[in-house]
């Protein structure tokens, strides 16, 4: 866990926005939305892992189990 995951997410965000614009200009709105959804799912996958780590840390700190 470091700062690099934040940069990764930012990079994916920028690229997905470029994908969306390019596909929308070519008249493929459905593909553009699908692409955005795929990017969102990818980022969610990373974020969910980090959230899991956070919850584990909280449990460890407060001795909740």
């Amino acid at each position, binding site marked *: 866990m470091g700062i690099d995951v934040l940069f*990764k997410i930012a*990079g*994916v965000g920028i*690229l997905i926005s*470029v*994908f969306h614009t*390019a*596909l929308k*200009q*070519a*008249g*493929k709105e459905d593909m553009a939305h699908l692409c955005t959804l795929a990017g969102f799912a*990818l980022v969610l996958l990373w974020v969910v892992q980090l959230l899991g780590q956070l919850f584990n840390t909280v449990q460890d700190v407060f001795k909740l189990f």
Partner: protein
Amino acid sequence: MWLKIIGSIIIIFTSTYIGFSLASRYAERPHQIRQLISCLSALKSLINYVAVPLPEALSQCTCGLVGPVTDFFHKTSILLHNGRLTPQAAMDQALKDSKQLVFTQAEREILTSFSATLGSMDREEQHKSLELIHEQLFRIQKDAEIRCEQNVKMYRYLGVCSGLAIVIILL
């Protein structure tokens, strides 16, 4: 570390290349259709007014042009000259052999239906069928130009960006 950087550069270059080659297919198509139209109009005048035999007419109609369309007509002409093929069979064979043509199914069907009338009907009928094919090809050319405008930019962007996306995901 260096291995990662070199791999990333290779991935980005490859995906950019794929994107640009897909874009060039779309950019090439209107150009080839335009060449086909000019070849067919030359063929029309060669059939109607000069009345040369078909193999010679097919090789003469590409005068001044270069590219895959020219090769296609030359191949058809050579096949007609050498083998004992009908014009339809020769054109089908040349269409299959010319790998550099980026024609879609629509143009291929038009060419096949045109080759069925080629050399088997009289001059007026051939003239009529050529005019019909001209109209169809003009329509297809307009459609191809619109698609070219839309898709060329998109494929270039997508090529570069997908390479970057893969690199970011794998990093």
